[in-house]
């Protein structure tokens, strides 16, 4: 079964510092997609970044970047220059290329300290 593991239930970072959230996944598929979603207290799910497994280059969106290690099945999210508005739950998610089932991890609660 495909699983997504986020080993850090909670993380904290000082404003303007950098933080890395961990995610590992288990799959035998070669074609898949990985995502990080942000869920603020409003509970809305906001797409932060996505990575196609066939791309070797790590995805980047402004202050957000990933470290995709396909062999290790690792997909960590780095947030640079952390801002108070980054405080939220962050969910890592996996989707096989031929399936509509998005598998989520249990989330990491990020606190940003002023």
């Amino acid at each position, binding site marked *: 079964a495909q699983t997504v593991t986020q080993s850090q239930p909670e993380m904290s970072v000082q404003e303007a510092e950098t933080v890395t959230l961990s995610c590992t996944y288990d799959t035998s598929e070669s074609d898949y997609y990985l995502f990080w979603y942000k869920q603020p207290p409003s*509970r809305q799910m906001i797409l932060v970044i996505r990575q196609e497994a066939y791309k070797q280059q790590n995805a980047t969106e402004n202050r957000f970047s990933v470290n995709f290690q396909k062999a290790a099945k690792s997909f960590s999210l780095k947030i640079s220059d952390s801002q108070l508005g980054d405080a939220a739950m962050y969910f890592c998610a996996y989707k096989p290329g031929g399936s509509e089932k998005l598998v989520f991890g249990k*989330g990491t609660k990020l606190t940003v300290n002023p």
Partner: protein
Amino acid sequence: NAGVTQTPKFRILKIGQSMTLQCTQDMNHNYMYWYRQDPGMGLKLIYYSVGAGITDKGEVPNGYNVSRSTTEDFPLRLELAAPSQTSVYFCASSVTGNTIYFGEGSWLTVV
């Protein structure tokens, strides 16, 4: 830009009652989904649709029904509500089936 719109945002149901969560999207996305999120957990797929007239079960379909008569609308029906269905429900859509965009969620409490 309305995106994915869900109604109602909050609802309290009594055990055994039925209700429909409405979902509509204005992005002409062919894929639509219903997820539920229990406290402290990630989202789990209830049902999905790859186009009008086509629906399929996800991980946790029991106790729910869906229909997809138009591209825009994907209502979720709860029959005979049970306390185990207390959750936050998210409707979502995508154009390719890869990047999925979510609505703002509907809080449902069954008492």
